[in-house]
């Protein structure tokens, strides 16, 4: 059982790292701010989510696991809010000019 959990951690964290890598490449290579925002939020939401899911079997107690999930939820909330605000201000600037 513990071997399965270890492999789950390895697979999930590697997958999360892949999304961070893909998000970073997108941030550097995508042509405009909207697509760059898209790349960035994918890294935050999916990458961090997979890393958290992967680390869950490795923690000792429920409260540490809850803290990890809370961190993910808070990053989801702040990432979604910030990217919405940036996108909205971009669109306003774009329509003005």
């Amino acid at each position, binding site marked *: 059982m513990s071997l399965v959990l270890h492999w789950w951690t390895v697979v999930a964290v590697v997958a999360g790292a892949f999304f961070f890598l893909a998000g970073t490449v997108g941030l550097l290579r995508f042509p405009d701010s909207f697509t760059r925002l898209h790349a960035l939020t994918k890294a935050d939401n999916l990458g961090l989510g997979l890393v958290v899911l992967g680390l869950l079997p490795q923690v000792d107690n429920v409260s540490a696991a809850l803290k990890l999930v809370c961190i993910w939820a*808070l990053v989801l*909330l*702040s990432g*979604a*809010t910030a990217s*919405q*605000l940036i996108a*909205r201000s971009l669109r306003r600037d774009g329509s003005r000019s």
Partner: protein
Amino acid sequence: MNDVLNLGLVVLILGLAVWTIVAREAYAAVVGFIAYGLLLTLVWVQLHGIDVALTEAAIGGGLTGALLIGAAARLRSTEAAARAERPGPATRWVAALVSVAVTAALGLCVLVLPVPAPTLAPEVAANIAVTEVLNPITAVLLAFRAMDTLLEAIVLLFALIGVWSLAPDHAWGGRPGLLQQAEPDGMLAYAARVLPPIGIVAGMYIFWVGADHPGGKFQGATILAAMWLLVMMAGLADAPPIRRAWLRWLLVAGPLAFIGIGVVGAMSAGAFLAYPHGFAKPLILVIEFALMPTLTLILGLMLLGAPRRGEAS
């Protein structure tokens, strides 16, 4: 494996530091500085200085970063003019020489430190039981070096007065910052309704565990100040006019309570800021509770800046 990680951190930090210095735009330099602060947080974690890491993340990266973003935004209109008047080669050479000399002197100081470095850590460890506080950082900050913490709080108060003194005459006593007009049903207002309950719990938790675990009033107050700022930025509440008596009293309440307890210590325990035997923990708690609202207000108001509008608007 850990060494590779640490080496990577060092390379990244040095690279970011250089990038922050050579960046031509103030805004780019600020972004570099914030990332630098976050990486520095990781360094402190690696050095097992969790308290310092928390402070660096909250104040060094977060709050200072927000202050600098505001400053960069205000400097933007003058930036082109400032860049146009480049200093002459003589000035630049002198500046480079002085910088190199300071760096060399600092490096020399670090290299000639005796090994092992002189430390008071064993004495702190031997005497920490008297304070009944389990977190050695808190014991040092509020018992063995309480004077430093008191002066820190007072310095922050002076800094806020310095910010206020930039107010134009007609706005003196009025509300700091601009009137925020976010959409009442927009994303920002939504976040400003959802996040503060969580943030207040997290801030108070970090404040409360500071006695026995990493955490404390500075980190907790920064989180509370951030929540307050979020609510004001979303237009759900307005900044208080700085002429309000309750505001001024809260701003001095923390340092006053601290000084009061210090004077009591001078009379009952023989030295300023000494705690009578057996009362160390309760008195430390009183000081922390008194400083918390003061620090929250100071940090929040410092980010809002000088008063810019009258009381009505």
